[in-house]
């Protein structure tokens, strides 16, 4: 007996079209439940995470997001042994999910990764080459590293606030994630209504030009993964 894999939620009445391919041999179908439409697929087991399966999950969610007035993405890997188990879990959270769906209606997510080429993280130069010669020296080096980490985090938060302020009026919400030094300074997610996309892009271009020492890598628009409860 196969289980059921969940991709996303849309408003009741907005289900997948015929023959929408998912990760398995069967088509993606819709289950109407508590004012929501659940986009699901019959699968024998939970798919293994890989670049391919992750992108296939995303492809179904993106189809829902492009065709329905609202789409609430589900995280990869939400598989249930039976439809009854899935429906029981959703009924428990029905009002919460409907509210979350309304919040992201007509909007998409834009990603922004900010990289500072001068950022070397919190490690000291030549940290590996110079082993501390005493306990005191070791503790002092740890203290310096903590201070640098704090300073780096403060800088990332300050930059995020500046971005949010600059984007005000064109975004509904912003989410910030700090990054390790070799990944960049900060990763931001912006929830942008479709009617605001041009303004968002224009404001972001102005901000980027005023911070020419930094590198900005834009992604999206995507379904609003970062703004799901």
């Amino acid at each position, binding site marked *: 007996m196969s289980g059921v894999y*969940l991709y*996303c*939620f849309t408003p009741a009445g907005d289900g997948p079209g015929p023959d929408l391919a998912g990760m398995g041999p069967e088509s993606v179908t819709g289950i109407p439940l508590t004012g929501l439409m659940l986009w699901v697929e019959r699968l024998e087991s*939970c798919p*293994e*995470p890989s*670049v391919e399966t*992750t*992108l296939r*999950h*995303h492809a179904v*969610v993106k189809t829902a997001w492009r065709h329905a007035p609202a789409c*609430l*993405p*589900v*995280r*990869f*890997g*939400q598989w*249930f042994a039976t439809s009854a188990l*899935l429906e029981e*879990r*959703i009924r428990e*959270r029905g009002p919460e*999910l409907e509210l*979350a769906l309304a919040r992201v209606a007509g909007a998409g*997510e834009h*990603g922004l*990764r900010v*990289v500072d*080429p001068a*950022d070397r993280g919190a490690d000291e130069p030549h940290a590996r080459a110079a082993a501390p010669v005493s306990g005191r020296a070791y503790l002092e080096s740890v203290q310096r590293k903590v201070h640098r980490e704090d300073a780096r985090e403060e800088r990332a938060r300050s930059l995020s606030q500046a971005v949010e302020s600059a984007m005000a009026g064109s975004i509904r919400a912003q989410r910030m994630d700090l990054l390790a*030094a*070799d*990944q*960049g300074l900060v*990763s931001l*997610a912006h929830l942008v209504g479709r009617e605001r*996309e*041009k*303004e*968002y*892009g*224009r*404001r*972001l*271009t102005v901000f980027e030009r005023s911070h020419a020492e930094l*590198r900005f*890598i*834009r*992604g*999206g*628009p*995507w379904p609003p*993964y*970062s703004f*799901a*409860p």
Partner: protein
Amino acid sequence: MAENESPEVARGPESGLDDQEIVLVELLSRVLDRGVVVHGEVTISVAGIDLIYLGLRLQLASTETLLRRMRARGEITSHAEPGDEKPGQ
């Protein structure tokens, strides 16, 4: 930058990923780490080892490493999604 121009592909910091790969990592991170969770935890298999993973940060940390290796082996070149226009550029 005009709307139809592609951004010049640049290398990331020490990670060695170019912009398109960074965007792919950003997308994969979202699909694996964000979105509604109905189950309390997700079982993830990495290299055949099942991990009960409550935060998915471990999977995210390995994603960039995985991409670097795949790129070094020539298994990926570009995964830019069609239709991902950059508004206002």
